């Protein structure tokens, strides 16, 4: 049953645009979906290697800016009078290049910052995100600074023999986001269930022991950082081409915090955790808006968060799994139950 759950969820999600025609709620699904992808990328680092990257939004923003700039084109003068002119390229190349550039930044940050762990790592990643935000704000020639990059083209896909299909309508964009989400989910689940994933879990559980069985800690952490940054970059690209405008505010610390909330409440270190947490915290503002004023919306958001963290400190998904496991146990014959108790 558990094996089919992701597919059932995928089919259920795919049916949403068929019966839901309210554009406002569909819009909420799309932006929530984008943030779920970002939260999944954060979960790979936080949940499976135990490294808290509070600068994850940097990779999200880098993906957004790169994809937008590749598809808009730019003309900048670098130090020494070298002019770089880039003609607009098709949007899908922008998305791909955005992923590659983000992943590359993940590699650099990982290589440099995994020498330090714990609080130092957190500080390095926050600083990185802040530096990237300042670059986006001040390199006006490239990014338009606070004036924002506008008229970012929608995603179009050239189908051989069939002409172009553009993801302009909300329905089609929903499917695009869902597709990227599903691919990211598969990549992460393949990775964490492989030999590499076991090594990551081992080093999270007991780093010195992991080293002593021959796991090269830094290279696995860097690998996780690269995959995580690439997926965050994909989410950023989707975000840019959906909103069609981005400004340096995409690098705000608030967005990282949103991702952390989604991961921690849903259950870090589980595949479904960020999806569950993302749906809850993506939709609380949407639903609360219909019956309370804006000043109460965020209070409700905060209350939900505190209640979940207090009642289910490990997160929603692990709590559900534990509940099912304990139900299984109570169905066991008495002799095995005694053994289980003896064992613990």
């Amino acid at each position, binding site marked *: 049953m558990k094996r089919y759950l992701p597919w059932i969820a995928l089919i259920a999600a795919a049916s949403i645009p068929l019966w839901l025609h309210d554009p406002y709620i569909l819009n909420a699904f799309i932006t929530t979906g984008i943030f779920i992808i970002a939260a999944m990328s954060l979960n790979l680092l936080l949940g499976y290697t135990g490294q808290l990257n509070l600068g994850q939004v940097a990779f999200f923003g880098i993906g957004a800016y790169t994809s937008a700039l590749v598809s808009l084109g730019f003309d900048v003068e670098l130090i020494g009078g070298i002019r770089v002119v880039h003609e607009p390229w098709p949007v899908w190349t922008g998305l791909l290049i955005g992923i590659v550039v983000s992943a590359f930044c993940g590699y650099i940050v990982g290589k440099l910052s995994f020498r330090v762990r714990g609080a130092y790592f957190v500080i390095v990643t926050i600083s990185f995100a802040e530096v990237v935000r300042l670059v986006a704000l001040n390199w006006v020639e490239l990014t338009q600074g606070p004036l924002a990059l506008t008229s970012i083209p929608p995603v179009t896909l050239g189908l051989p023999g069939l002409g172009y299909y553009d993801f302009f309508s909300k329905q089609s964009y929903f499917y695009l986001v869902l597709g990227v989400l599903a691919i990211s989910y598969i990549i992460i689940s393949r990775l964490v269930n492989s*030999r590499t994933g*076991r*090594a990551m*879990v*081992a080093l999270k*559980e*007991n780093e*010195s*022991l*992991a*080293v*002593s*069985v*021959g*796991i*090269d800690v830094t290279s696995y952490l860097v690998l996780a950082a690269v995959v995580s940054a690439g997926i965050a970059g994909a989410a950023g690209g989707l975000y840019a081409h959906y909103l069609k405008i981005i400004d340096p505010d995409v690098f705000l610390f608030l967005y990282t915090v949103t991702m952390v909330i989604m991961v921690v409440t849903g259950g870090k270190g589980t595949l479904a955790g960020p999806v569950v947490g993302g749906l809850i915290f993506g939709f609380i503002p949407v639903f609360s808006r219909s019956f309370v004023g804006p000043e109460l919306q965020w209070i409700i958001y905060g209350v939900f968060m505190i209640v979940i963290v207090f009642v289910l400190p490990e997160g929603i998904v692990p709590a559900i799994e534990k509940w099912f496991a304990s139900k299984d146990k109570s169905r066991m014959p008495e002799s095995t139950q005694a053994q289980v108790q003896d*064992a*613990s």
Partner: protein
Amino acid sequence: MLEVRDLVCRYGKVEALKGISLSVKQGQFVALIGANGAGKSTTLRAISGVLSSAAGQLSFEGQDITRCSAREIIGRGIAHCPEGRRVFPDMTVDENLDMGAYLRPDRAGIEQDRERVFGMFPRLAERRQQVAGTLSGGEQQMLAISRSIMSRPKLMMFDEPSLGLAPNIVEQVFDIIDNIRKSGTTVLMVEQNAYSALEMCDYAYLIEAGVIVLSGTGEELIDNKHIRDAYLGGSGH
């Protein structure tokens, strides 16, 4: 088999090892004894490549391993059974054993060794699917030893295998280590429990404040006056 020459290790500015030399011969059981903080664990950590040394040479089977990574050293056949938190607590017994064989590519050989350790420790075989954190202290130590066996080492290094275990379990653990040695694996063991270690070993080194101050066969050291006074609780034994 293993030669350590003038090994110096530092934690920041503190010099934990001030030039240690020792050697372990093929098939031998060598013990390293000394008080808390003398540098016993540091020595093992330096040999296994977890800690990099500031000066000195390490060689294994005639080849220089001073600059090798932990990964390469395990590949060459040195297993390290560290002290303290000995297992991966959220992994099952089986998964812990898999981690021990992490660098080995031969699936068939791994399964053979798994059966072998389950033969040695039937308790673990019963608990294959149990999460290691829920095992008793003695079972965890047996799992840690089994995990080291899974890397098919030529030299096994034990760091305080008796630490935190009940006396009757300690005896069992020492018996297991003795059996491992009898099966042909060379053993280097660090122990605070000096008397048991000296009784079991072929050769022993006494380390004090980062320096080797005495060495000799187990019997020689048991009879040594300094050791009797400082480590064996006077002449009572």
